[in-house]
């Protein structure tokens, strides 16, 4: 181990919050990579600039993604992080682990990498931070031998993730873990071999609380909901009231559609289910008294992504309600995914997310291509401008020029006619 001084990083060992510097130093006791990672970071702290270069293409046999290449721009000074690639290891659905599973990862990573990790990456993977090129294949081999596989990177399906759902939550409207696992396995090829215009993310939340931020962070957001009524245990309501919960102020007054009421005299709570939008708020506030409905499924939303290029998009509703039963193997959802991907793959430009493609091409084109019916739930409100299109079959043909008009509306370019 080198004895370089790191006065900057030393400052970050202070303070009550667990220190990543201490984590790195601990690994640096046994790993020269970790040591140089620290030294390089100190260099960045001094220079106020990053010292990593664009990663070249690195990887393991049979995979187009799952490893992020990373090279240091001062390889002479920091030879042990000259190559410092990361693995994205597909987490188990819901981020549950046995202690042995964790140890198996630790052992592989001790052998091949820096010993540094992220539990987890923002997409959901286990991120193993920093291995040299020559270790990539052997590291993967050991991971695989221990039952681990890689997650996504590049222009592919990214590792799906899901909330804790039925494993620990009374609000789960379907089995988020099972769906996540099922989709991940169904689409191994899409996950491992980049071939699309850009990345595609799926995130799965069991209810409208959206504990995996799917609407903001996934191209497809799957959000649990129900079609019938909220269950009410009036005795439990009374308990909440008796225990001082301000039901009128903190629950009823905050209902987005004035769909619930509290009778302060009778101490009863009621929901006008037809006007309830299942936002979860009242249930959140009185989990003992209120239960999600029994006719359960999910709302499917599409198009979410971060800022670049067109602006951040929040996924929008494309299927208001879909049943998601384990027994059906989620065929309806998978069919939809296949159709969407096909359309996007054919029409998308390089680095164009599916939401951006829909923005460019128009929702009507998308809906038609994937066979979805337009529904008012898809919009906050209808268009304000009068710039809408007609399909050829919707128009009356003019005498004579009927066919030309038809062709025209079908999308051909005509000159004068």
């Amino acid at each position, binding site marked *: 181990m080198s004895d370089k001084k790191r006065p900057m990083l030393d400052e970050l060992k202070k303070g009550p919050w667990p220190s990543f510097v201490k984590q790195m130093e601990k690994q640096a006791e046994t790993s020269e990579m970790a040591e140089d990672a620290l030294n390089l970071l100190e260099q960045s702290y001094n220079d106020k600039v990053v010292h990593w270069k664009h990663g070249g293409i690195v990887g393991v046999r049979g995979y187009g993604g799952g490893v992020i290449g990373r090279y240091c721009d001062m390889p002479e000074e920091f030879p042990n992080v000259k190559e410092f690639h990361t693995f994205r290891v597909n987490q188990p659905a819901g981020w549950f682990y046995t202690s042995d599973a964790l140890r198996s990862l630790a052992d592989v990573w001790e052998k091949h990498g820096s010993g540094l990790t992220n539990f987890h990456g923002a997409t959901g993977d286990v991120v193993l931070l920093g291995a040299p090129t020559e270790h990539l294949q052997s590291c993967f081999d050991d991971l695989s031998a221990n039952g681990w596989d890689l997650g996504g990177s590049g222009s592919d399906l990214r590792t799906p993730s899901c909330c804790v759902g039925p494993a620990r939550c009374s609000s789960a409207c379907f089995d988020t873990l099972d769906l996540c696992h099922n989709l991940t396995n169904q689409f191994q090829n899409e996950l491992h071999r980049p071939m699309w215009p850009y990345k595609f993310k799926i995130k799965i939340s069991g209810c*409208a609380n*959206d504990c995996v931020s799917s*609407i903001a962070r996934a191209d497809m957001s799957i*959000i649990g*909901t129900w*079609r019938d009524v909220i269950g009410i245990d009036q005795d439990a309501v009374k308990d909440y009231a008796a225990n001082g919960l301000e039901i009128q102020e903190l629950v009823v007054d905050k209902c*987005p*559609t004035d769909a619930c009421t509290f009778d302060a005299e009778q101490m009863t709570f009621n929901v006008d289910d*037809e*006007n309830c*939008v*299942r*936002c979860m708020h009242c249930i959140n506030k009185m989990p003992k008294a209120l239960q999600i409905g029994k006719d359960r499924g999910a*709302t499917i*939303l599409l*198009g*979410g992504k971060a800022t670049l290029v*067109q*602006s951040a*998009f*929040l*996924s*929008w*509703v494309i299927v*208001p*309600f879909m049943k998601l039963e384990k027994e059906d193997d989620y065929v309806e959802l998978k069919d939809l995914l296949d159709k969407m991907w096909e359309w996007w793959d054919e029409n998308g430009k390089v680095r164009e997310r599916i939401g951006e493609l829909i*923005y460019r091409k*128009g*929702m009507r084109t998308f809906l038609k291509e994937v066979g979805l019916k*337009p*529904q*008012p*739930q*898809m*919009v*906050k*409100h*209808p*268009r*304000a*401008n*009068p*710039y*809408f*299109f*007609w399909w050829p079959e*919707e*128009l*009356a043909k*003019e005498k004579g020029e009927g066919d030309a008009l038809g*062709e*025209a509306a*079908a*999308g*051909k*370019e*005509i*000159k*004068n*006619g």
Partner: protein
Amino acid sequence: MVKTMAKTDIGPPHYEQMLPQIIKDNYGKWKYFERVKPGVLKHVSETGDELYTVRVGSPRLIGIDTLRKMADLADKYCNGHLRFTSRHNIEFLLDSSNEMNALIGELEARGWPIGGTGNSLNNIIHTQGWVHCHSAATDASGTVKAVMDDLYDYFKADDLPAKLKISMACCLNMCGAVHCSDIAFVGIHRTVPRIDDEGVSKNCEIPNLIASCPTGAIRPNPKAKSVIVNEEKCMYCGNCYTVCPSMKIMDPENDGLAIFVGGKVSNSRSGPTFSRLAIPWLPNNPPRWDELVEAVRNLVDVWIQNAKKGERYGEWIERIGWEKFFEIAGLPFTDKHIDDFKFSVPTFRSTSNFKYTK
């Protein structure tokens, strides 16, 4: 023979010359008003003076004969003064209520309706239509007359949930404040312009023509010294036709009307909001546009039946949600309703919060 040059830039007559004495006396001193009955307002001044306004519905397209008759009535009842409103009604201004009913009697006898104040149907703002504009996809005066005949009673009474402002424009130039009305009907095209290459090359500035297209559907056709329209991108706005007459867009069978709802202009409570597409197309069916009349009537009725007191059209819809509006109004929701222009994305529903509909 050259006449002496008329004076230019004299500007409009000074408004003070036009004001009745009671208004000059109480200018800026009005204290409050009351709605006496539909069509009649009473304004009370700090000075104690009372001004009575009688509001008369007008088709806006009026002849000088009517103008003179109104002038005569103004002489008879209002010391020779009257005004028009921003929605083209005529207002008679009386300095007492004594002769008010006589005036109203004369007006009604001649077929002039009194109303349009308070929570009534206001006069329909509209444009030229086939009467004068080259750009019109439908007629303005005719559609408005047909609709006003049908909704006449709502102009004469003032017990609607709130004000009801209907507007009409005969093409997408939207010369009325159509885009922010409770209900708006608009003449639209549905087929692409037919290009007369010779005309384009002779009479039109091609760069301007290309720039006129909101969707970038027009590109040069250098061979013909004309342009080409990409049919997939054209949504028939007719702006190219405004810029260049050789881009004919009229199509009798496919032109028609679209209806938008839920806009407002005032800042009262919430700020101005756009009207939004309710019905993408209804046929041009002169002389009385039955489909249009029925559709508007239905839209008015569902509002009256469902809105709470004080709720403008759009406020009602915002409360119940657009999805419920389509259900209650019995309107099909189509791909046309989903925005696909410049600012489309923020109109999509980015939340799982919505109501189910049948």
